[in-house]
């Protein structure tokens, strides 16, 4: 649901960049989406299609970059992409430390 609002921010950033970087068409946008960002990628794609209509970003491809590691074991150094429900390291059982996962950032764009 709120993917729509996020797409509005995304298109606003792209339009800002269009005036700064002087481009008039966007071919692709690379987004890093953390697993804890609370964002559904398919909803994001749909929202982007709708919100980008009539802007420089219309028709651009959304490239979703794999999310970073966001849980790390302080004892054995194991890294997990998903936080297990127990919150414990799958290797040694120690409490995992969260290291990220809430990112939702635009990284780069292919423009013309």
């Amino acid at each position, binding site marked *: *649901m*709120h993917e729509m*609002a996020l797409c509005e921010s995304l298109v606003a*950033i792209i339009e800002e960049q269009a005036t700064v970087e002087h481009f008039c068409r966007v071919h692709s946008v690379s987004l890093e989406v953390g697993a804890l960002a609370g964002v559904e990628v398919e909803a994001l794609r749909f929202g982007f299609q709708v919100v980008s209509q009539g802007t420089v970003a219309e028709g651009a491809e959304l490239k979703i970059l794999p999310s970073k590691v966001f849980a790390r074991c302080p004892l054995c150094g194991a890294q997990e992409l998903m936080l297990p429900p127990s919150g414990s390291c799958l290797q040694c059982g120690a409490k995992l430390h969260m290291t990220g996962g809430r990112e939702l950032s*635009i990284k780069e764009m*292919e423009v013309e």
Partner: protein
Amino acid sequence: MCGVCGCGKEEQELESKHAHKLARDGEAASNGHEDHVHLPRFAHAPGLSARRMVQVEQDLFAKNQRYAQSNRQNFEDRGIFVLNLMSSPGSGKTTLLVRTVEVLSGSGSVAVIEGDQQTDRDAKRIAATGVPVHQINTGRGCHLDAHGVGHAYEHLAPADHSVLFIENVGNLVCPSGFDLGEARRVVILSVTEGEDKPLKYPDMFRVADVMVLNKIDLLSHVEFDVDACCTYARAINPSLAILMVSATRGAGMADWLEWLAVEQAQWVKGCARKITAG
């Protein structure tokens, strides 16, 4: 005038006689324009790559985060303790809020920001208690954002050292992603919903400071496993405080009010430390 490049060369010439043999990539077509080159429309200039990468590095939450930080600074400067109340629709947020402000308004200043997609029905319920309230209607929006809350705060102008409750839009998903500048996040879950909600909507329970398990007076009528619910919630967020309340009957209200008082005192201390450190 040439319709392709706008040069005035063959002013008198008919467009049909001035056929443009458009250039292929990198190859110039001359056709009577020997002194300059016509390129196919929308083509790149030869030797220049029109497609390029632009590095951006901007967080989509950044805009909301900037507003949230500014709200938080305002709240801290004026000692206003702000709570963001979140839950699915129908969990009893407004009833809990009405009962809470009835008590708190006797001992200090309280204000409420109400968030709903439509209507001011909740604001009217709060206003009936005599507490200042401002309604935000989000329209299509599924959550409150920090920008809207900042304006509501300006409009409401709560007194210094008051408690400000923000009742978010009834939605167990989206509000969890939007910081409003609050000091504490409260998730309300009612026993009529199902004990596995923390597992199904982990984001909300992960960001919350306290879970208020509401409508406990109905426990004997519904199949709701309190222990399982608490286990699930703590699996998602080990530091989550849990309170059992019946806002309509009053059970557990004292614990909730005590939690509020303790957290407010802690928050005030935290703010004072920040000021000393700063």
